[in-house]
């Protein structure tokens, strides 16, 4: 895989560009899958969805053209060149949200657990990714203010949201080529509890989720596992 998400983001902003192809950013796709395609209401609790979106943001950093971080043994660790220089110094994301996440990771003196990052980033991930999608034109805020808060963003076109779901489901279709992007997206969809969205597709999936994600590099599989672990704990938590 390895995409330049700065280019992907700028490409998405180009006027007239078809948005059926998505932004190419994992967290964006997860946001569209995780919210109702018409009302914009989240399909999961904010805590669980936030964990999934945080996982998407970390996945973007791990799958960039020049990956700057890795998930290893339960920790999110910056990557370094052989000369000791952090990769992030020379490969900053062009997209602001990913850039902020990378800055936060690099500002920590020692690696923190993936769970801590998922919880911390998850607190604001939904809003951050929604803002990014708003800039890309995928979501919009309805006109008219509510008394106490801004109206939540809603997808502009339900087909764009559905295409995100199609890309995730493609990883589970036996007759389709399995790409790393689709496998990663499907893994994160299932890990954060959005697997029920696949129930709308007719017939049983031809490829098991474990099979789809097995070919991913171990750090990505570990990230998916940590998202599921943290998401499950969020469900079991007595706090919302």
């Amino acid at each position, binding site marked *: 895989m390895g995409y330049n998400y700065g280019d992907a983001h700028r490409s998405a902003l180009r006027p007239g560009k078809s948005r059926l192809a998505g932004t190419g950013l994992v967290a964006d796709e997860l946001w569209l899958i995780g919210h109702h395609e018409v009302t914009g209401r989240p399909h999961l609790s904010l805590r669980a969805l936030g964990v999934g979106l945080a996982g998407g943001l970390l996945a973007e950093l791990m799958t960039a053209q020049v990956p700057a971080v890795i998930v290893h043994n339960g920790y999110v660790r910056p*990557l370094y060149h*052989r000369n000791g220089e952090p990769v992030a110094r020379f490969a900053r994301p062009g997209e602001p949200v990913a850039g902020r996440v990378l800055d936060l990771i690099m500002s920590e*003196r020692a690696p923190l657990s993936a769970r801590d990052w998922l919880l911390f980033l998850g607190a604001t991930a939904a809003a951050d990714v929604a803002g990014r999608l708003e800039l890309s034109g995928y979501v919009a805020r309805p006109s008219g203010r509510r008394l106490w808060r801004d109206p939540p963003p809603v997808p502009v076109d339900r087909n764009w949201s559905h295409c995100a779901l199609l890309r995730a489901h493609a990883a589970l279709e036996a007759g389709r080529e399995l790409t790393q992007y689709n496998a990663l997206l499907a893994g994160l969809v299932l890990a954060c509890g959005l697997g029920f969205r696949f129930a709308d597709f007719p017939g049983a999936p031809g490829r098991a989720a474990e099979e789809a994600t097995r070919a991913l590099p*171990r750090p990505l599989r570990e990230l998916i596992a940590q998202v599921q672990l943290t998401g499950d*704990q969020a469900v*079991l938590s007595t706090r919302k």
Partner: protein
Amino acid sequence: MHSSPAAPARHSAVSQALARDRVGVLPVWFFLLSGIAPLTVTAGVVTSAYATTGLTGIPVAFLAVAVVLALFIPGYMAMSRCIVNAGAFSAFISRGLGRPAGVAAALMALLAYSFLQVGLYGAIGPAAEAEAQARLHLSAPWWAWALAAWAVITVLGLARVDVTGRVLGILTTAEIAVIAAEVIAGLARPAGGHLSWSPLAPGSLGTGGWGTIGVLAVVAGLGYVGFEAGPVLAEETRNPRRTIPAATYLAVAGIAVLYTAASFAMSAHAGLSHVVADAASQGPGLMFAMGGPALAGIAQFLFLTSLLAAALAFHNSCWRYCFSLSRERVLPAFLSRTGSRGVPTAASLAQSLTGLAVIAIYAAGGWQPMSDLFFAFGTTGGLGILILLALTSLAVIRFFSAGDGARAREPGWARLIAPALSAVTLTAIVILAVAHYATLLGVAPGRPAAWLLPASFAAAAAAGLAWAAVLRLCRPNVYATIGLGAAAVTSQLTPAPGGHS
């Protein structure tokens, strides 16, 4: 490229931000009390126990069970530091006694919590009926009120309304205050004008014959159910190693003092020779009558809210257990599917349907809700919890005996001596209770309920063992992760084909 080594994170902005969201001892303590529901136990369980069993050693039984739990807690806490799993009992038993035992324990736990939750409708109905009659002059049968409460619990359960935090803090504080006031009033006016301390003497445990110690222990143990939930919050506390044990010991000590005092005050106020008959005729009123009419009115209202809060707390415990087991794929996957509220809808509805069926059966059968549903189901649930505590103690011993490294660093008291003592004591209690189950239920020996109810746990265990065998044969990857909980997903990571690491 290479990654940096891990080191303890200090002064981390992220850690500090997360720490602000974490809780200390007091919120954990209140969380533990949420499932304990003090007025439910004192006004509901204790009065029913006096009336149903005819035994007067209930006050000292609470103290005795507190001692047993004090032996149980060290090993339980030590193991919870090694294993993070919301389905604590079954996970601990899996890791200590093997996966088949873990599956058996999981089904027994689900059954026990379900008994506890469903049984509460047998008290909610009559309590609501009395309140509605007294305050609103509305008349409806107990089961109608129970169904109304069932509907409320179903909706709140699906909406993921945990009565925690400030609301619970206020309710719990009010309950404790009312109980304290009733205790003071009751002790200030003992029967015959003088206070007899005999109900607190250890010899009182044997007033109905020493074989009935098990019966008294089950009744008292029911009052402590919920104390074991501390490890569920381990990940959300600032210092789990200190916070969870502190809150747990605090909860057990507080419960012991409160329930001992309340049951003793009822016995002292009514008189040792009259407390059983008065409990049979007055029910929860035995407690409310110790204070004046105003206090009684407040107590009756809080009794109803306590029952509802307990029913909701146990309802949520049931779906959390279902969710954990479903995530491990011991139970079907659809039980872990969550909606926008973060509640596994199917699991929540399954528990609700169980409650509906039981209310309907009892209403159709015309059985007594307080004795035949609330007390019978509640004490049976309590028996299940005691069985699980005994098995967990054995699991603790086995787990630490097989381990090294971090496990070996736990003190010998926590990993061997205390759990051994609690395992022996709890096993003896369970055996005695089962042998005298008719006394517990207040029925003649040989009646079906006297063996059907305890036998239900044996049936659940057998089903669990059989299902574990099926999983081992047909789904070995699922069998391999039993007891690992959410961490099962990280335990199964293997290198990808092609040499990726």
